[in-house]
């Protein structure tokens, strides 16, 4: 029997609407912007309600792959009854990095009870 490809059968879906919203694309879930002033790079994220960014997973490396120091403020302690406390940012997040060369930034977060995103990597060009 020929198996029907997904794209075709998806047209036949008549599933009732699920209550939880579909996860946003990563760039909308964790909208990141930065400003560079000299060697100082200031990063900022804006997240819709229901999304959070892990403090410990905001990391940066230089062009040679060496870890750079990322300064981040204290975050909200997410009390998870099963998995214990973890520091996360809701709404907005910021971080500072001092480096004049190109920076490879990595960060990750989740939609509450929905989806944990693939780590996002962004290259910030040298000044």
């Amino acid at each position, binding site marked *: 029997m020929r*198996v*029907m*490809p*997904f*794209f*075709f*059968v*998806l*047209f*036949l*879906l*008549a*599933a*009732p*609407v*699920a*209550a*939880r*919203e*579909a*996860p*946003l*694309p*990563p760039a909308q879930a964790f909208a990141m912007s930065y400003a560079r002033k000299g060697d100082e790079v200031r990063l900022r994220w804006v997240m819709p309600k229901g999304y959070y960014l*892990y403090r*410990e997973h905001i990391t940066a490396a230089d062009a040679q792959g060496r870890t750079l120091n990322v300064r981040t403020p204290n975050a909200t302690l997410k009390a*998870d009854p*099963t*998995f*214990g406390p*973890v520091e996360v940012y809701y709404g907005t997040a910021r971080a500072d990095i001092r480096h004049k060369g190109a920076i490879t930034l990595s960060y*990750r977060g*989740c*939609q509450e*009870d*929905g*989806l*944990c*995103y*693939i*780590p996002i990597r962004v290259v910030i060009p040298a000044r």
Partner: protein
Amino acid sequence: MITRRHMLALGAATAAVPFSAAAQTDFPTLAEVTVDPDAPFIGNANGDLTIVEYFDYQCSVCKHAHFSLMDIVRADGNIRWMLRDWIIFGEVSTYAAQVALGAQTLGVYEQVSSALMRIPGGNLNKGDIFGALMQTGLTPADLLKAYRADQARIDALLARNARQAEGFGFSGTPSFIIGNAVYRGALSPDDMTQAIADARQRQKALSA
């Protein structure tokens, strides 16, 4: 408001154009995803419905979703739940997958994967895994030995899982195929129960 169902409908509509030219070959077929003797499963091997989950052992949402779905699968009794490791969080996730898939070759997959899913926290280290396995009477060394004995097959499975997840364009884990429908992200127990009922209805309609 964009809902999961709306996203599905949008995905189908946007995917239809390239597919009409049969140009997009990365989008997996139902057979590729659901028929795979190498992929581990929990539940009823002859179940009338297959759920495929793409997950990572370091995904905190996956851990919550895992035991919720386990309860549903057990209560239902007629679901084949296929678990496809999609390693997105790095080296320790690879290690955990190797340990679990080594356990599969020894016939103790469910025991070991559940132990890994119970480890507190979103971040694992090898010590956590060792500790979790001690409670099962197994050691990572035993399971890695089993993995290495069948490494080519298991590595090919992991590569296949990643290709499929990327082919679907998933942004993260968990993501599901329930029957013939794609769901991005975890579902609440009520939504999962409804999705299962809907999938069975579609199967019935397609076979009528």
